[in-house]
């Protein structure tokens, strides 16, 4: 048997491989550690509870308060209800290149969404407000499908995020922005 002459040699080879494994794991740790702590890339982990039975009576998620609002200080917040089988509102305008906070909750079952072509992604769990903070770089329409099975109508549950260039960004007197899906 050519490759191995004695047990010590075998163990030496194993030890060398163990060093390579340690190196590989260290690299993984470093990549994740740096992206988490230095670049502050964290998933949405905003443990904030809300009673799903009374979501629509809450001040924040009352129907008139849903959608995109710009506060007097310029902060942009999008409030959405994800419900079987639609997002309210269905068309969501956001300004390009500005920080946007999306706050979503569900009065019924588990939903989730992603915004195609971006890193915006979260689960929407009844009983909690999911919060995603992001900046939209590219102007144009982005699809926003529900990405978690929520019942037989799940495949039809889509919204649209319209990223508007800052020059064309408009709000009404209450600081609300609206858009329509026309296709």
């Amino acid at each position, binding site marked *: *048997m*050519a*490759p*191995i002459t004695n047990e010590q040699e*075998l163990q030496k080879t*194993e030890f060398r*491989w163990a060093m390579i*494994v340690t190196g*590989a*794991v260290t690299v*993984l*740790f470093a990549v*994740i550690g740096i*992206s*988490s702590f230095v670049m502050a*890339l*964290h*998933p949405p*982990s*905003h*443990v*904030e*509870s809300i*009673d*799903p*039975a009374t979501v629509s009576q809450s001040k924040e998620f009352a129907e008139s308060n849903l959608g995109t609002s710009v506060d007097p200080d310029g902060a942009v917040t999008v409030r959405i209800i994800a419900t*079987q089988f639609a997002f309210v509102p269905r068309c969501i305008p956001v300004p390009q290149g500005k920080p946007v906070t999306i706050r979503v909750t569900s009065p*019924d*079952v*588990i939903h*989730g969404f*992603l*915004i*195609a*072509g971006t*890193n*915006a*992604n*979260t*689960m929407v*769990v*009844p*009983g*909690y407000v*999911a*919060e995603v903070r992001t900046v939209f770089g590219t102007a144009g*329409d982005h*699809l926003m*499908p*529900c*990405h*978690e*099975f*929520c*019942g*037989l*109508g*799940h*495949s039809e549950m889509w919204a649209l995020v319209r990223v508007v260039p800052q020059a064309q960004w408009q709000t009404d007197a209450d600081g609300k922005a609206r858009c329509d899906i026309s*296709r």
Partner: protein
Amino acid sequence: MTYRADRLILAHFGVAFAAFALAILLGAWQMTVRSGLEPAFTSPEAYFASVTAHGTIMGYVMPTLFIMGFGYFVSVTTLDRPLPSLRLAWAGFWLVIVGVAMALPAVFSGKATVLYTFYPPLTGSVFYYLGLVLVVVGSWFWVGLMIWAMAGWKKDNPGKPVPLAMYGNVANAFLWLWTTVGVAVELLFQVIPASLGWTQTIDIGLARTLFAWTLHPIVYFWLLPAYIVFYTIAPRAAGGRLYSDMMGRLSFLLLVLYSLPVGMHHLFMDPEHGTGFKFLQMMLTVLVTVPTLLTIFTIGASMEIAGRLRGGKGLFGWIGALPWDRPMVLATCLSFVLLGFGGFGGIINMSYGMNAMIHNTSWVTAHFHLIYGGTVVIMYFAIAYEFWPKLVGREPLSLKPIRLQLWMWAIGMVVTTFPWHILGLEGQPRRVATFDYTNPMIAHWQNWTIVSMIGGYILLTSGLLFVWNLLTLYRGAEADRQMHYAVAVYPPHRVPSALNGFDLCNGLVLFLMLMAYGYPVAQFFFIKDYPALVHRVDLGN
């Protein structure tokens, strides 16, 4: 071998593969629906019932029965003694069968369309959940028998190393016992009471956390038989020896330790947990790569020994010298390659920053199909081809259709899953029945979806050829029924007790689980959270 449990093992394998054939048929049909080519046969009721059945069979029924049969075979052949109780083994089998007979009709009648991950507060027929509980309880009989078998052998062979295959097998039994705790608690204390109408609400954060407890290690439960075979059968099939017995033990032990406290990486995008424990479990997830990297080295080295013994020369010459005509050697290699693809996708998933790009997209489906179908099931095929002749005493008529079947499976996996990776990066959500391809924003998804559908039919053909190959075996020539396992280059005479039993292992698991899940589970009992109302899916609209 003197002692046998052939009928018991064949019963487990037979039902496992019959269910498997049904599930791949459903899988191919689901891809046809998604492709948009056949809208006539499409309804969301049928599609999601099919997804539920596919996941239930592939996740709970097929691997559980296969692994039970595999464990009985390994126990009898490595310890060379009968099972501690054949009667209890049959009782476990029948519990699983009764469970399947309760759960699947509920699924196919559309009364349990909740997917195999349950997703409360969606709530279906209680027969679905009770059926699955029986499947798990039946598998606990197997767990008990495997632990009992090893303990009995150790008592009669004091100080001797437990045969490596059996050591891995009992590692898997303990792993499964730990794994099932989460889902058992979720079903028994949350979902089943709701399904019976005893409770009207469910704490969803708790339910999701308990399910995550199970959802990751269950994959390693499926995977362990493949690893056991890499170490204890493949080197011999290649004509060589196992490079290191100790490395096998260490890998099995580490797989039990590191696959358990990591399930919260399935909850990275969930709002009910903070970043702290998500980060901790992500770091622990990184460590799962260690036993896999050790295995790749040890099996690679074992194969090199075989190749050189067969006259292979030079740095890579030994690879060509391996007996590629043997199904076990071919399957091991294909399994490693697909594990590489699947593992790459997995590293993206487990990095909680990058995961945001692809969470709940087709990318994830691609990842776990590569691991499950590409790494695990292809080895189940190889195991069946290895064990079946021993069980029925017949040689295969020819190895050609067997090799063809394995190649088709591997190619089918690549053709199915590579488009899913691309579609996932473009934002295609998983678990959606139909897409509106007339929408110009997603029209270009259709071509890739059709490619993966073609992959699905390659897989279906391969799966049916597998069943055919097993059936034609009965017409073959008489076979040697003796099972031989690979011998290590330096067979161990004594091994440390930590690598010959599971006391230390279980102690460490307990510690890791308390550390990883103690607070995340306990928080639901003291933070102010609100349960969700039960949403029944089985009462009509």
